């Protein structure tokens, strides 16, 4: 053993080794607050009630004109008004995506009960995911350019564009001074952000991280999915034989993550859930379609389980990526078969209610998983009518179900062949975490 010094930085014990490497002692990471902007409610309680009740947020699109597109429905967050959550200056500085992110961040911070001072300084970080970020800002700039030429492009709008701004706006608002990072991982972005945020804490680089993801519904994005023939007419029916595709949605799901030491030191913290292992692979197969044998997805789920220190039989429920497309749901069913064998672990897709909120999807769904962990409620897959032999899984059909609820998986897949799975658990239901450094072991 070549340990030389034990140093305590913030709330993390760090072993300095003779060759210069630093390995932090194993750290549990907890979710202590969540905030939601979605088509089925603002805030945790409204969101949980809607999920449990099987409420659909899919309604006719109002944000833009869809009359020529052949599709007209989406999961729009119509109840969200930025000025209810942000200052006038903040509203002016941001596009809708950042506005939703900051509003959800404020809800999450309030839910966590964390003192504002604990979020200030270099030990607090912000890590966010998205697919297209401030798409409305760019859309406005583009439209001005197209119709009025370069002279019509307003200089003041330009600095408002860029995915990098999502965590910047939150960091400015809360006074954090650690990492500000955007991980644009398309439809898996929420899981990527949560996984990386947990790793930042485990590595000893942060005590508290505000994380999650945000996405807004935007005209070009909507049109593009229609042109990909991926959009269903009016309802999203994951795992159903007659499923016709996805329905886009929007929203923001933000979580406050804290190290065990940080959360327990401030006695007011409620431990909503523990973040377990995070699995991540890339199909390297096709830019939009999952690998037909789901090799990468299987690998990501195995990683999430193994990195949580458990075996598949410990998993009580799987929140599916469940987009409602032929390829996705079939691939995901193969993953379930490969991982769990003949054991039918209940699976459900919140996208049947929320729509596919793109980058925000797996962050919102991670929060939905907390409903399961807290109350033992499996949110339903609404609109499920006809079983598909190709999707031989135990779908929580149409009505919420109660069941074991100690450990769940949050599954996500994305453009670019991204696969990401996060294990979430009731506090202290997971075994002691493994050392952060797998190289040291």
């Amino acid at each position, binding site marked *: 053993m070549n340990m030389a010094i034990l140093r305590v930085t913030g709330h993390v014990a760090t072993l300095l080794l003779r060759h210069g490497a630093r390995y932090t002692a194993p750290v549990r990471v907890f979710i202590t607050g969540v905030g939601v902007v979605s088509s089925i409610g603002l805030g945790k309680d409204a969101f949980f009630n809607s999920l449990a009740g099987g409420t659909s947020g899919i309604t006719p699109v109002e944000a833009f004109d869809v009359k020529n597109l052949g599709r007209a429905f989406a999961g729009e967050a119509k109840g969200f008004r930025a000025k209810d959550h942000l200052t006038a200056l903040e509203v002016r500085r941001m596009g809708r995506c950042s506005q939703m992110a900051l509003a959800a961040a404020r809800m999450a911070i309030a839910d966590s009960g964390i003192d504002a001072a604990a979020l200030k300084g270099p030990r607090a970080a912000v890590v966010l995911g998205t697919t297209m970020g401030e798409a409305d800002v760019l859309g406005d700039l*583009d439209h001005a350019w197209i119709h009025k030429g370069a002279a019509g492009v307003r200089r003041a709008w330009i600095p408002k564009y860029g995915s990098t701004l999502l965590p910047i706006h939150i960091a400015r608002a809360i006074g954090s001074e650690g990492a500000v990072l955007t991980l644009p991982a398309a439809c898996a972005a929420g899981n990527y952000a949560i996984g990386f945020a947990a790793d930042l804490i485990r590595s000893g680089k942060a005590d508290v991280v505000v994380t999650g993801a945000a996405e807004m519904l935007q005209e*070009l994005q909507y049109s593009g999915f229609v042109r990909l023939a991926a959009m269903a007419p009016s309802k999203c029916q994951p795992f159903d034989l007659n499923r016709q595709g996805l329905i886009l949605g929007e929203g923001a799901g933000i979580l406050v993550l804290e190290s065990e030491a940080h959360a327990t030191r401030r006695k007011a913290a409620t431990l909503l859930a523990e973040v377990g292992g995070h699995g991540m*692979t890339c199909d390297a197969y096709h830019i939009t379609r999952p690998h037909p044998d789901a090799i990468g997805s299987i690998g990501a789920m195995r990683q999430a389980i193994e990195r949580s220190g458990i075996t598949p039989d410990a998993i009580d429920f799987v929140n599916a990526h469940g987009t409602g497309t032929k390829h996705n749901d079939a691939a995901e069913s193969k993953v379930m078969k490969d991982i769990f064998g003949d054991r039918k672990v209940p699976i459900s897709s919140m996208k049947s209610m929320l729509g596919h909120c793109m980058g925000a999807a797996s962050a919102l769904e991670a929060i939905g998983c907390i409903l399961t962990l807290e109350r033992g409620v499996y949110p339903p897959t609404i609109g499920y009518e006809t079983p598909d032999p190709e999707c031989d899984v135990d779908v929580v059909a149409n009505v919420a179900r109660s069941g074991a609820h100690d450990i769940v998986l949050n599954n996500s897949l994305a453009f670019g062949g991204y696969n990401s799975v996060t294990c979430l658990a009731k506090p202290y239901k997971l075994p002691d975490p493994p050392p952060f450094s797998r190289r040291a072991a």
Partner: protein
Amino acid sequence: MTPRFVTGLGIACALGTGTDTFFRGLVDAKRLSALPASAVTSFDVSKYPDARIVEVPEFDPTKYLGDKGLRTLDRLTKLLVVAARLCLHDAGIKKDNLWVALTPERVGVVCSNAYGSLEAITELDRVAKLEDARYINPAKFPNTVSNSASGYVSIWEELRALNVSVSDGNCGGLDAVACADIFLETSRADAIITGGGEAMSEALFLAFQKLGVLGPVTGAGDRTTNGTVTNDTRLGEAAAFLALEVPEVARARGARVLGEIVGYGTSFFAPEESPLVYASREAMKRAITAALADAQVAAGDVDLVVSSVAGLPQLDDEELAGIRDVLPAVAVVAPKLVLGETLGAGGTIGMAASLAWLGGAPIAKDLIVGGALPSRVRHVVVTSIGYYGNASAVVLRAASA
């Protein structure tokens, strides 16, 4: 940080394509301000007679990728895939496009870009508005998604361990290192090609021109700060990847080591009353201090700072002041003065240039913006300052004997 061995470099930038071309070009590189404007090929510049843009010269992806499958890829994707392929070959992981070391399941990608999907979004927006959304080319739609270019890198090069995109503005290239470091430490991969890219497009140029940051700025006049000719930012494009490996993996396969990444630091500092666009001297200072602590390198042991100074005084002055707060007398160079402002690729390009100097290459005098050149370079700090109050730094050292 556990040292990360840099075992390969793939690059396409204003000096050309390929590591040897880059290293050779760096030796006697000239400031863009001293060069005549070069012809622009990526878009029609007839509307912008004063456009000063730096492109990758004679970039021909078919030379490296063949001529199949390129039709629907945007310029950024082509640049990044070429850089990735060159990097994997330079690292000896691939030869003649076949795997000769490691396996696809243990090699991943971390890729930064700031405005990667801009070209595709503006192109498809134009189709939707001037024709009809029904005429959007579905094969091009994936290019509008920020991580698309990085995803194509995995597809073309068969990299399955992981693929992570980072969008962190100017700091993205260095922040990608922080991600790769964690992924290597947690054994998600044995090697990660880590880098970034930014491609020239009319929309990107127009945005920066409208912001009034592309020089020379009429009426303001040039001024000199610490040797920097200011008000003369040129927008550039580039793509670069470094192959990062944990030492035991690199040693086990007998890999050549170009240099070692040994420290990383980042900081965000924007006072409440500050404007949204805000370059932070304090964040720069803290990022460098954190990177040196992470590397366990004393300030006095730093031989060279490779800055992100690009000719824009609002940013350059704060960055240089932050550098001087920690490293008051160390020589500072600015590759962007010869390569252009390459945004999400900038940090990677800075690290790539550092590898040349850690290997003993001479430093062109046009790159120097402060301090006296050291007799030898053993430790380099690479810095990036963001537009919104963030800053990052990475410490590299010469390869161990």
